[in-house]
């Protein structure tokens, strides 16, 4: 069987024996800068805008989202935070979907997908999405536009802080996705085109 054969070849080449203990791995390198909340919010907005996304701070996220989706069809994830903000009750928003086929066809036909985000990373303008019964993957993926509504306390400084909070993300979720700006390509003559397979527009509403 190839498994044993390959592992045997690896061990022989390295001069190791089966089950032999390993030396300690180099210590993990995590450096979390001290950045106050206001600066993190400002950083997040600046980074998202640098990536041609929209970002704003809003006291009333419902009103902001209502303006953004006026006249459009939208599908919202099952994140409790979205219903707390009253976003799922906006006209034109479909929510509470628990069937795969319904979710697929809705996400493939709607103009906008609305989600929350588990975290955001200020220094790169990144949304961190952990898949769960509350956050399906396709909502931030199939529609041409993605709106994420994020409470300000979830904005972290960056990757270092994220992985110190979630040292093993697999314990929380089967899929953690970091989204940094709209889907893009430069595969034809290095010319930047947005919206290849994922959303070409991304908006972050910080509450």
């Amino acid at each position, binding site marked *: 069987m190839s498994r044993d054969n390959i592992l045997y070849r690896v061990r022989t080449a390295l001069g190791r024996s089966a089950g032999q203990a390993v030396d300690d791995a180099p210590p993990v390198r*995590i450096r979390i800068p001290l950045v106050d909340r206001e600066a993190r919010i400002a950083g997040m907005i600046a980074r998202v805008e640098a990536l041609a996304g929209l970002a704003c701070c809003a006291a009333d996220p419902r009103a902001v989202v209502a303006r953004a989706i006026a006249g459009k069809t939208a599908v919202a994830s099952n994140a409790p935070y979205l219903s707390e903000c009253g976003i799922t009750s906006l006209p034109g928003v479909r929510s509470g979907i628990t069937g795969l086929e319904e979710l697929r066809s809705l996400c*493939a036909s709607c103009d906008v997908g609305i989600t929350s985000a588990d975290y955001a990373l200020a220094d790169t303008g990144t949304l961190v999405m952990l*898949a769960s019964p509350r956050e399906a993957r396709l909502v931030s993926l199939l529609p041409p536009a993605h709106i994420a509504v994020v409470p300000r306390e979830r904005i972290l400084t960056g990757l270092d802080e994220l992985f110190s909070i979630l040292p093993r993300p697999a314990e929380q979720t089967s899929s953690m996705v970091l989204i940094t700006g709209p*889907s893009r390509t430069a595969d034809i003559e290095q010319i930047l085109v947005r919206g290849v*397979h994922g959303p070409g527009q991304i908006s972050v509403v910080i509450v």
Partner: protein
Amino acid sequence: MSIEFDAKIHATLEDANLQLAIYTATGRLKEKRIEAVSSEALPDYQELRTQANAIKKHAIENLDHYLEEFERNVEARGGKVAYCKDATEVSDFVLSIAKERGSRLIVKSKSMTTEEVDLNERLEHHGLESVETDLGEYILQLAHEKPYHIVAPALHKTRYDVAGIFTNSLHVPTETVPEKQTAIARAVLRQKFLDADIGISGANFLVADSGAVVLVENEGNARLTTTAPKIHIAVAGIEKVIPRAQDLVTFLKLLARSATGQLLSVYTSFLAGPRRPGEVDGPDEFYVVLLDNGRTKLLPDRTKRQSLYCIRCGACLNTCPVYRKIGGHSFPWVYSGPIGAIITPQFMGVSHEPGLPFASSLCGACGEVCPVKIDIPRVLLELRSDVKKSEAREKQNRLERLAFRVYAWLMTHPRLYEMAGRIGASMAPDSEGGWIRNVPAPMNLPPVRAWLSQRDLPPSPNKSFREMWRQR
């Protein structure tokens, strides 16, 4: 250098449009990288490189341990791991799953590892449709070409080339605006994503402590490949394993910056097993293929094994004065540029293309930009020495072959054979202890000495067998 390698290089050098395309694209990527890793943009860049190198070194030195840990954790989360030794085993594995489920359509996201084993061709040979979904890779699949560059596969195609390819293969009206060309591909591929039964991805990292596959991309095709179909199969080289999820902090900061100058790629997916109870979407089945395909051959040599640290960012290609002239298709295998020049001879054997380790000015730029600090120039030198040793062996073998050919010819010409035998016997030296150990001056040539040093020659008899037979 082989005639083929030489011819491809010359064809590239003589194509002015191609020269411009390579020079512009690599130049732009190179500039963006320099900006992204500058001391203002990333003050701890050098420490990150040192850390990345230390982690890779540790992971490779203890590879069996981390592979088994990875495997245990994938299986604990309901996924399965398949070790494959070569191209045939990978395609057989995918085919067996496709056959069991009655699947016909496969979507694929960009993966150099699957290029290495010609997976698409093998699957299509068995009647499956396997569609590349990265825009560049899709263009190349329609054009029946191999990637030109690890990161920018269709770097050599102009928008006019793309227009021709789309019109020919997709029967759409000619469209030369990249934005609209992208929309055409999006529409065709969107349907493929929704119809496909199996999604095949590569892996940028395999995380041992999590049993997770990490994918880094900009378009969203890898997310769709691993989300929309019911089955996700990730194909990865065994060297991709890193010990801990927290090590990603180091690698993710380096990878996108080195590849395209981005702080992070648009999508970084950390995938640990099939969807869990209550989740509405995500794959039902999750498989990881761990591919050897020659990698274990690189492990014994302490210097050369660092070739396996590579995270496929392509920075060494963009900065290499040789790659920037001779381009990607001159290289004899899927991996091009400096990293290709050190990987290919080790995977395929140095005699596959003996000119390859010499296709470098040894200027050292590749080693300087490598985010995991692979000492590419040093490995190139080692491989040059291997090529020379193998050529010397070849030469020695050639003389031996010539000697045997002369002998064979003599054997088929009895009279000449007898005459040669008599001459030989008359010249034969005295034996020492029953064996001939030395030959006299005119015959005492280095190859004869080398031959005799390993072999015992009996002294020549007074009469040959033929003479005895005649006198019987």
